[in-house]
Every structure is written in C-alpha cells, then in structure tokens.
C-alpha cells in the first residue's frame, strides 16, 4: 500500500503541466471574433465532414472563410436567446422539418436573390425566400433480391399488407426522415387512414425500430428482414464504400424500389436538404453569397457526385449510380404544407406505439 515518494512528485508535476498546457491551448478562444471578421458563421445540422468539400470550394472561390458549429439540438434556442447579438449567419439542415421550425420561430431573413430564384425551382423554396432547398432525396424501399418478388411491393400503402408480416425493418418512427414521410401520408390520405396504415406497418415489423438507414440494409443482408425504408443516397454510399467493403455486400443483396409509381399514382416521397439566412445575421451579404454558391453548378455537382443526392438546379447531371437506378416519378406535394403536419405525424407515432416494435 505504500506509494513511492517520486510518484507523488510526478503526480504534481504531471497535473501542473497538463493544466498549464491546457490553459495555453485555450487562450486564443477567449478572444471573440464573432462580429469582427468577415467570415461566415454557419449552424449545421449536417456532419461537417459531409459539407467540408463544399465549404472549401466556396472559400477558394470567394476568399470568405466559413466557421461551423455542428449540432442537432439547441440551435434555434441559441439564435433566439442571442436576439440582436446573434452571431450566426446561416443554417444548413438535412430535412424540411427543421427549416419549417426555424421559419415558424421567426428567426429567418427573407432573401431576394435572382441567382437563387433561377437555380432553385419555385416548389423547392419558400415563396418569400425564407429558405431554399439545395438537394432533394427520395425515401425509397430496399428489398431483398432473393426474398421479395418483382412486383410484390409497389407503394407505401403496401407496407401495411399482411403478406409482409415480420419482414420490415426501419429506423425509429421519430426520426425526421420518417416523420416527414408520415406527414406526407397524412397529407395525401388523411388522419384515420394514416393511423391504420402506421398500425399495419408496425405489425409487420421484424424488430423494434433501431439503427440508422444503413443498418436496415445490413439487416436485410443478414436475413433479419426483407424490406427496409431508406433515403436513396445511402444505397450509393454503400455501393461505393471502399473503406468498409462489407457494405458493398449489403447493397448487392438488395434492390432499390421507387414507390407509388403507377400511372395515376402520386410518386415517391421526397425530402429536401436546405439552407436559410438568419434574421439578425451579422454578415448577411456573405451568407447570401454562400447560399448562391451552394445552389450553383459547381456545388450542385459536388452534391450529386459525392453525396449522390438530387441537385435542385436544372441541368446538373445526377451521379452515374443514381442514374443506373432508372428514372422515377417524384411526389410533388407542397413541401411546406407537408412540413406543417410533422407534429401531427410525430404524435401519431406515439399513439400507435410505433417504436415499441412488433410485439406489443
């Protein structure tokens, strides 16, 4: 139980050194450059490693640096609390729900820009320029190549059919992507039909909702289920994953199915990723420049090639892989109208106990 004296000594020295080096490392951050420089401050709901290539290209072209905070919670509260002292200039989101939330909170700035209005089709931006879609993504079905017949699954409504009992995998019903899909179902089919549908899908689940979109493809590959709902770019990301080649096997075991493609049907559900300028942005001009850049040819091409999303700008080519899945009909329902139903959708998920999984 004896502690040699030198150890006690080393403890003090070590701790002191750690403290001193820590303090020195922190010093630069106590100077607050928030309003001083011309750099843009960006709140991002997207992981920085996904958007860094775009931001680097922007800095190269304009000389404007972009500083990012990535968080999924608390951004709105931070913007709101700061009021006039707000340091954030722009915000990037991965779905329409967050854009709509920011808009309803009244923290967005109306932007009038010919460039943005030319690049972004009218149905993918707010009429007053409060937010702009930058890419669209389709929520599709992945089905097992071996265990699901060619025409077995045709629509979202089919997912509730008894023949799929114990065969469906999906992430939490509370995830923004699923909430948006359920909101779209509410928009098209009404509340009662959607509740019944959600109950049906729940009864067909193979397991309690869990994991991310890729994990659902993996579950099909492993034989846990036959059908999964995912955003389509994940398929491309798995197909081209050199770092984790096992994901290529997951992708190879499934087919991608666009839903509701019948002649008179409404088409596959779509969501957007988008951007907006904050009302009290200290660098609003630069922030608008960033949005314009993100909707322009070079950035849209990066979105298409690197992330395999659909560019919003007409004339920008889809990635080769995305093209290989064939063309499809997209649901053109008013995206803002759908977004307004997301709280209703979220409550519906609670009401049917979707996240409890198939057993209860």
């Amino acid at each position: 139980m004896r502690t040699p004296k030198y150890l006690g000594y080393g403890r003090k020295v070590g701790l002191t050194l750690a403290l001193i080096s820590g303090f020195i490392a922190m010093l630069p951050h106590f100077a607050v450059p928030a309003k001083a420089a011309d750099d843009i401050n960006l709140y991002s709901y997207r992981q920085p490693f996904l958007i860094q290539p775009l931001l680097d290209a922007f800095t190269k072209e304009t000389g404007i640096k972009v500083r990012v905070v990535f968080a999924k919670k608390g951004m709105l509260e931070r913007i709101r609390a700061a009021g006039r002292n707000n340091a954030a200039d722009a915000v990037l989101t991965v779905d329409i729900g967050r854009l709509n939330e920011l808009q309803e909170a009244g923290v967005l700035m109306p932007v009038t820009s010919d460039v943005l209005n030319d690049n972004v089709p009218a149905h993918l931006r707010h009429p007053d320029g409060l937010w702009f879609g930058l890419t669209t993504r389709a929520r599709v079905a992945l089905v097992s190549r071996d265990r699901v017949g060619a025409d077995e699954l045709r629509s979202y409504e089919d997912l509730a059919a008894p023949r799929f009992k114990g065969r469906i995998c999906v992430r939490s019903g509370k995830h923004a992507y699923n909430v948006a899909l359920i909101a779209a179902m509410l928009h098209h089919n009404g509340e009662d039909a959607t509740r019944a549908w959600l109950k049906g899908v729940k009864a067909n689940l193979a397991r309690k909702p869990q994991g991310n979109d890729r994990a659902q493809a993996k579950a099909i590959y492993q034989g846990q289920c036959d059908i999964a709902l995912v955003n389509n770019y994940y398929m491309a990301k798995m197909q081209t994953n050199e770092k984790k080649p096992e994901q290529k096997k997951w992708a190879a075991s499934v087919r991608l199915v666009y839903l509701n493609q019948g002649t008179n049907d409404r088409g596959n559900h779509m969501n957007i990723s988008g951007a907006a300028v904050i009302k009290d942005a200290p660098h609003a001009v630069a922030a608008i420049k960033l949005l314009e850049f993100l909707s322009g040819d070079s950035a849209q091409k990066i979105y298409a090639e690197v992330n395999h999303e659909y560019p919003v700008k007409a004339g920008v080519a889809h990635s080769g892989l995305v093209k290989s899945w064939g063309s499809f009909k997209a649901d053109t329902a008013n995206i803002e109208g759908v977004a307004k139903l997301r709280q209703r959708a979220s409550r519906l998920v609670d009401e049917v106990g979707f996240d409890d999984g198939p057993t209860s």
Partner: protein
Amino acid sequence: MTAETHMPTRPAIRFGRLAVDPWAIGALAVAVFVAAPLFAVLWQALSTSEDIWGHLVATVLPTYVRETLLLMTGVGIGTLIIGTGTAWLVTMCRFPGQRMLTWALLLPFAVPAYLLAFVATDQLEYAGTIQTWLRAIFGWQRPSDYWFPEIRSLGGAIWVMTLALYPYVYLLARSAFLEQSVCVLEVSRTLGKTPWGSFWGVALPLARPALVIGISLALMETLNDFGTVDFFAVRTFTVGIYDVWLNMSSIAGAAQLSLVLMVFVLLLIIAERLARRGRRYHHTTTRHQNLPSYRLRGGRAALALAACALPIFLGFVVPAGVLIGYAVEFHAETLSPRYFEFAGNSLGLSAFAALGAVIVGVVLAYAVRLSAHPAVTGMARFASIGYAVPASVLAVGVILPLAGVDEAMEGTTTALFGIPAPILFSGTVAAVVYGYLVRFLALSHGAVEAGLAKVTPSMDGAARTLGASPGGALGRVHFPLIRGSLLTAALLVFVDCMKELPMTLVLRPFDFDTLATFVYQYASDELFEEASLAALTIVAAGILPVILLSMTIVNSRRGGT
C-alpha cells in the same frame, strides 16, 4: 470516533446592528450564479400555455416511466453488487494481482457509456463478431435458427451502464472500507464473526452512507444519459424530453418534463443526505495500522481475481482493444492535424472547469459548515441539481442568462460610452466552462463536503480559539487536511468534462471542437472507426486521473501525507 459537536459561533462583520456573515453572502452569491440556468429552465417550463401532458399521459409517458424505473433499478443493483463486491475483495483480501486491481477497477470510468454501447453492439449484434462466430460453429443460417439476447434492449442498456458506472460505487465503497476503524473489524472477528459475517454485519452497514452516495451519483448519470439509451432504442424519460423538444417543437414542454425528472433526482438527493446524516463520525486519531487482510489461496484466490478482472475486461479492455484496432486500421483518416487542436481544447476546457468547480465547491461546502442558515444550505443543495437535468436542456438554461448578461452589458456600455461591449459570454469558451461548472458542481461539492466532514470540528474550534479568521482556518487548517479530497474533486470533474458531449455541442463557439464533439460527428452517423483515435484519447485522458485517484485514496488512509 466521536459524535459531531456544534460549530463554534462565527464572527460577523457588523454594520450598525445588522450582522452580515461574509461567507454566507459569498456562498449565496455563488449558489445563485450556478443556479441561474436551473431557474432559466424553471422559467421556461412555466412560460407556456400549450399542454403536451394530455397526449403524453395517454400515449408514451407510461413507457418512459416504466423503462426509466427499470433501468435505474437494474443499474442500481448492478453497480451496488459489482462496486461493493470488488471494493471489499481488493481492500480486505490479499490475492495475486490484488494490488494492480485496486486501480485497474477504476479504468472503466475512463470509457464513456456511449462508446461502450457502440463497442458492445459492434460485438454482440446479429452481424457482430460473437454471433457470426457462433453461426459458423453451429451452422445456423438465420435469426430464427437460434436464440441470442438482443443487445439493443433495456437489458443491454443496464449492462452497459452498470459497467460504465460501477466505479462510482467502487470508489466510494473502497474509501469507506479503508476509513473504517480497524478496531471495529477486529472486535467483530474477536467476537467470533467469520470474515463474511464481518462484511455483512459490520463493514457493510458502516459503509452504507458511502454506498448510497455512489449509487445516487451513478443513477443521476443514468437518468441524464441520452447517447446510450438512444443507441439501444430504450425509451426513457430523457428520450421523451428530447422527443418533445425536437419533434413537437416544444422547449417549454421539454423543460416541464425536465422538472419532473428533477423530482426523481431530488428524491435521490434526499436519500443521499439521509444516508450522510448517519455518517457524522470523525476519527480522533490519525494513527492507523494496516488493515487486517484475509489471505486467499488456490481456488478462492482465482475466483476473487476473476470476479474483479471481469468488469475491467468487459468495461475497459474490450472497448479499448476494439478502439485501438480501429485506430490502427484507419490511422490515415484519424490522425488529422486538427486532432491535436481538439485534444488541446478538451484538456483546456476540462482543466478550467475542474479548477472552477473545486473553488465553488469549497466556497459552498465551507459556508455550509460555518453557517447553518437554511437559505445557505438550501441554495447550496439546489445549485448541485444541475447534474441531473438533461444536459441539452440545461445548456439552453445556460444560454438564456448569458445572453441576458451580454445584452445588459452591451446596453450599458452603449449608453455610457457609445460603444457596444463585445460579446463576452454567449457562444464563447466561457459559456462552455460555465456550463460544465453548473453541470458538474454536484461532483466537486460532494467530494469537498465529504472531505470536510472528516475534519473534526474541534480543529475548527482550536484554530479559531487561537485567533484564526474563518478564511485563515480554511487556508491553514482545512486545506492541508482535505488536499486529497480536493484533488479527487478536481479529477472527477476533469474526467467528466473530457467525456461531456451534449452541453459542449450546444454551447461551443463556431469552428471549435473538442474530442467528444469530434467523435460525435462520426458516431452520429454510426461511423465510429474514423473517430477511433479521438475516442481512444478521451479514454486515455481518463486513465491518468483514474490512477491518481486511486493513489489519493490510499494516501488519505495514512492520515494525510
């Protein structure tokens, strides 16, 4: 041991006939400063007319409450058994490897629960190493061919959190066992109790207050956890709070639910205080002799070794091993130049916060010792509730007062000098440190309080009789005596700050990452491999304090160095 005597009466600065105790005033000010975010949460909860409760009660609230209670029960029992059992074995028994185990048992402390959850899933899910291996051996083809426990479940969460949190109980149980008077144990043995009998009949009841403190710390962390339960699809109260906030766009509703959560926590704190009440024993001598030890041999020694090694193996060796494997395999991606910047940020923030938390902890604990005024004790207790409020909600609570101060300062300087003051708090490093302080004060305050409790009040009396002021007595008498506890307090806060994620995410400045937020950006996409080196660093940074902690406890046994 003597029962506690009453504090000497304190001198006061007199303004006319008004007696003002500077320590009480100071402590009140500090407590209000730390409690401001809690009041902000309270204020938010009350500032709404919308009612989410009808919907919640009719749908998911029963599930939240049930799963929360089950999780707490499981983790409580798990940490109690593992923490107390291992502490007893390594403190009172002698067997091969026992000395190393005394500090190694703290190692899982260094692994954040969310990392452990990821590694456990990686190994135990259907596609994981273990099941793939089983299928290869037995020729099973699909999930329906065999039964295997589902790791992404309540049971899985209980396991993971027990392994991540038992060191709290171990730490406190071990120091309780070390402190126990040898005489008591010797008497019990002389009177014919078996070693086990002494454990159940004497040591365990005497250690009870410490165990309750350890378990309540573990349970507060369990209540607060989001990462692990979210990953395991367990729907606890905290998950519900975030759901109300993000999917129903109601921060007010989330704050209301947080208040209910605080009631859970208040109950825990009351339990802890009640337990501490029975703990007012002070050693009258600093002379100690070596503890009696039961020498274990053969099968018993092997069993003891295995029992202590298993939690270390599962809670530390396996996750660290998996992370090292990834870090080596993906070293090209992980060793980015910014890695060192993030490590420096984590280190600096944690050091600042640890220092601040200890200072505030000392001020509060000493003021409570000096003054029994209910306002002082009440505020000191309230100020340490931050540990239990869901961290992201608390972060919003931090944002509000800071923004208010910034605005007030800007207004004042504009009015006085015509120049707006720079933004000093919102979205700066100061906000993050403040947030850590609010959140982790319970740890430092508790440790300092426990340390002070060991100093017999007759010391205060002697010092003050000899003419020392309260501050002088603190500096020259208490400080040298509780140095070990202060270091413990600093280290606990330091390690927790290194691991802290949700508050850092919300409060940090633009373009500022810590190791934890860096890990999160990949982990949130289930791409842990890219962040394995940063994750490993968080673990490594936690190891050193863990070892130092262990030494501190042993040193404290020798009546101060």
